[in-house]
């Protein structure tokens, strides 16, 4: 009986005065429906919801989301039509996020509806919205066509296509934008013959829209069109559009072309890519607007992968050289992030000839992000030419980054060190990087010290326990004598991370004494961290050793003057006892 009380409260709170309670209640609409059962959900809950459409946006958003998965609660697809009016209402509200969610849910519900309901209810709903007085409902309508269309009768299909073309010519830019954005999805659901004959002209119109913001979004439909047209039609009809876009006077349109060029190349096929799109791409790489060059530079490798080395070297590589010296740091950073991926495309000889100079140039860049981006992708180049070629230039770059005055840069390089270590091998690490890592353990910024500790753990895993014992442990353990307790805590953290990697005897003979020694520290924070660590390490050790060293140490801490130390010591003892 009492089990019903929460439900009763939940139902009451659907109409609570406080929005937060209503939100909570509406977010659990499924629970309520489940409790009421399918019958009462249909006869009571749905009518109740349809009467109460005026609420805060957050509540409406939650409702729109809930209704998307409501089909089972009303009794399956045959009753799902009941949900449509509710969602129709929500898809006309003023707030964008609510409308978008309602459209999403409408499509989710729509996909479960039987064909008859699509024809009788769903398609008419889309038509109603498309003819709505306010632009809000017309915007929502554009999202429903792709779901409705494939399952409609022929006459309805004709109607829907006509309606969509009307939406593409709507007076408000908001509706035209939505239509432009979803034209691609709609094209995928429409028969190929109509795509070419009816939708393509719409697309051409949108492409010439007065409003920049509309043309911008039309670009996004290019790919979908390319995929839903036959290769021949795509080339004959779409290619001119793409080429025109790529020279549009608005940089934002060109930017969108640049970001989508790879997909376009794939859709239009290798011949066109080589003959037409590569020149367009080169133009974008040399665009006047830095933002466009950033987008294009980021695609250098992806586009090159679609071409043969013989095409890349004369066409793309000269641009790469130019971009490496671009006036905009963001262009250079974008290039640095991907340029290493060119190495596998070009092969060893060409890489050494053409790319290595670029790498070296970028490694000397004044802007740290550029250097970081090169380093983060080093594994790519290593596979092709081996790291030795770069090692000479690499080291100064790493050193400089590790000493950069911006802590985020230092953090980034510390996080990249495991990758570097793997590429460069243990000897190189011992010689060159090891000292740098130890330095990072003593960085004034806590996040960097933490990252350095985790870095060491990764390296230890990579190079094995024996290596760690010999090359890492001594340096780390020495640092426990640092004068500042925060640094001592970093060492403790580092030890506890390494403990999982090193062989047992190293743990017992060299680590444990240090930890136990730290339990005598004068700072309580160090001491309770010792307690926490011992708790974690204990399971790694044999029982006798736990009893002999860890237990006494913790017992002592249990009598510490500091409350927190006592608390953590007791907690640790408790866990150890429990596992005994």
């Amino acid at each position, binding site marked *: *009986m*009492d089990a*019903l*009380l*929460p*439900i*009763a*409260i939940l*139902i*009451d*709170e*659907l*109409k*609570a*005065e*406080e929005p937060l*309670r209503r939100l909570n209640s509406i977010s659990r609409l499924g629970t309520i429906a489940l*409790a*009421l059962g399918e019958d009462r959900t249909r006869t*009571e*809950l749905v009518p*109740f919801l349809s*009467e*109460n459409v*005026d609420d805060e946006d957050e509540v409406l958003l939650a409702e729109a989301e809930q209704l998307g998965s409501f089909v089972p609660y009303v009794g399956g697809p045959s009753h799902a039509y009941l949900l449509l009016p509710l969602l129709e209402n929500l898809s*006309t*509200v*003023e*707030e*964008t996020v609510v409308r978008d969610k309602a459209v999403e849910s409408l499509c989710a519900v729509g996909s479960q509806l039987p064909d008859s309901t699509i024809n009788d209810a769903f398609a008419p709903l889309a038509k109603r919205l498309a003819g709505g007085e*306010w*632009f*809000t409902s017309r915007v929502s309508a554009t999202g429903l066509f792709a779901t409705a269309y494939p399952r409609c009768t022929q006459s309805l299909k004709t109607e829907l296509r006509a309606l969509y073309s009307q939406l593409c010519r709507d007076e*408000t*830019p*908001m509706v035209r*934008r939505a239509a432009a954005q979803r034209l691609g999805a709609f094209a995928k659901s429409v028969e190929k013959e109509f795509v070419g004959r009816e939708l393509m002209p719409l697309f051409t119109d949108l492409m010439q829209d*007065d*409003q*920049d*913001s509309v043309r911008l979004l039309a670009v996004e439909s290019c790919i979908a069109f390319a995929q839903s047209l036959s290769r021949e039609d795509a080339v004959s009809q779409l290619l001119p559009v793409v080429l025109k876009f790529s020279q549009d*006077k*608005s*940089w*934002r349109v060109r930017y969108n072309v640049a970001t989508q060029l790879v997909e376009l190349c794939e859709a239009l096929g290798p011949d066109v890519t080589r003959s037409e799109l590569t020149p367009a791409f080169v133009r974008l790489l040399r665009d*006047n*607007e*830095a*933002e466009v060059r950033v987008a294009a530079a980021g695609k250098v490798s992806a586009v090159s992968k679609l071409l043969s080395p013989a095409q890349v070297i004369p066409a793309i590589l000269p641009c790469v050289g130019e971009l490496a010296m671009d006036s905009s740091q963001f262009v250079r950073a974008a290039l640095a992030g991907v340029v290493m991926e060119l190495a596998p495309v070009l092969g060893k000889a060409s890489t050494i000839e053409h790319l290595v100079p670029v790498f070296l140039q970028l490694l000397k860049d004044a802007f740290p992000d550029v250097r970081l981006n090169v380093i983060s992708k080093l594994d790519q180049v290593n596979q092709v030419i081996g790291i030795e070629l770069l090692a000479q230039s690499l080291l100064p770059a790493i050193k400089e980054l590790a000493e950069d005055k911006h802590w985020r840069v230092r953090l980034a390089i510390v996080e990249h060190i495991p990758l570097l270590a793997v590429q460069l091998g243990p000897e190189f690490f011992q010689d060159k990087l090891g000292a740098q890592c130890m330095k990072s353990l003593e960085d004034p910024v806590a996040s960097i010290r933490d990252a350095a500790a985790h870095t060491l753990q990764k390296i230890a895993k990579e190079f094995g326990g024996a290596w760690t014992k010999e090359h890492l442990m001594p340096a780390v353990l020495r640092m426990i004598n640092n004068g500042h307790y925060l640094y001592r805590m970093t060492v403790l953290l580092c030890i506890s991370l390494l403990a999982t990697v090193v062989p047992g005897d190293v743990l017992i003979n060299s680590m444990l004494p240090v930890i136990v020694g730290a339990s005598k520290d004068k700072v309580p924070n160090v001491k309770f961290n010792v307690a926490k660590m011992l708790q974690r390490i204990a399971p790694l050790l044999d029982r006798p050793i736990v009893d002999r060293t860890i237990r006494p140490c913790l017992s002592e801490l249990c009598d510490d003057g500091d409350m927190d130390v006592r608390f953590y010591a007791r907690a640790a003892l408790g866990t150890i006892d429990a596992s005994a």
Partner: protein
Amino acid sequence: MAEEWQFLQCFGERTPGEEIQEADVISAVEFDDNGMHLATGDRGGRVVLFERVSPEVPRGAAFEYRYMTEFQSHEPEFDYLKSLEIEEKINKVRWCRSSNNTRMLLSTNDKTVKLWKVYEKKVALLADFNLPGGGGGGGGLAGRPPNALSTPRLSSVHLPRVTSTEVMLAARCKRVYANAHTYHINSISCNSDGETFLSADDLRVNLWNLEVTSQSFNIVDIKPSSMENLTEVITSAEFHPTECNVLAYSSSKGCIRLADMRSAALCDHHAKAFEEVESQANKSFFSEIIASISDVTFSRDGRYLLSRDYMTLKLWDVNKENAPVATYNVHEQLRAKLCDLYENDSIFDKFDCCVNGQGTAVATGSYNNLFRVFNAWGDNSGSGDQTLEASRDPMRKRLQAPPSKNNARFGSTKSAPKSPPSKWSADAAELGSDYSSKLLHLAWHPEVNVIAAAASNSLYMYCA
């Protein structure tokens, strides 16, 4: 076209001798797209909305607005990082696209732009809760004793019933666009794409998406690398009414620049610059100050730009950069008094300007609660140009002697004893003696000849 301007109505009319509260002084006036609504902002951070009564009546005395609602848009704040007080004063209000019978508008003070939604909120009265007092407040699960009354059977669990609904007008702050301006915001303007708006401060113009408050894009930045080289500031900015990529911004040097957002992400290189070179002969100590443009606005079709500097209104053809197509002297009579005006800071007053929907007439404010309406395509003879007083009798000023010089600085504008009629222009030099009663803000109805003019705390409406 010298039409008779008639008084229509007045909101917040002062009674004689009434002291004006600083917070009540109107600081922004704006009609919405079709003129069905009017918004004002004041120094107290409030926004007051008016709506048209019986829109069937096209014009004339029956053209009437009524008070709709008001809300506190901005509160005084303190920037603790910079030890700076941020006034609540509304610098600009702008109507955005609206839908579903809700009104959206942007309001801004010096630092923060806010998006407001004004809508009819349905408040439902409910009955039949499952639990006594259910729905309203209550303490949730924990607070309820599980007695027999409150543990219903499933069949008796039911949904609350709506007994009746009331409709009330509510204003809700939908979004806050903050922390993007180092200097004081002087303008906001909605874009014709219905998706973005700009906000301009002394040195930068930022572009926002209405849906996104976490980031904005800097589209114009005139800040020199060293502030010692600072020679001009942005005074006003506005989007083109139909072309979503074009914006105009004016500067303290008297230059209006047109920027095209298509050509580059950062529009530091303007597409066009409208500037009139002043002849050396007219140069004086005040030349630079009075050249500063206080307001710039596009005509409704986007063909012309209207700008206001201290002495004149200028109408520019967007296709002609080197000189305005027309210049209207607003208070040439003050030229001799620039020294006084400089001393009492009046020379820095920023007057709005506006143009009617057809682009045939322009208007701007002046001192003594006067505003001037010019025939945009007049023959420079001044015929059709009118000076009107923000009072119940707007045409009075033409027939009335200038107010005596010993008017109290904060004196009310109640009509002075009338002296024999005299042509206003003859006494022009006398005008402007009451520098405190300045009419800075006014707006022209987008479709018909109706002007809303703000004289300190009162909003006067006129039609012609």
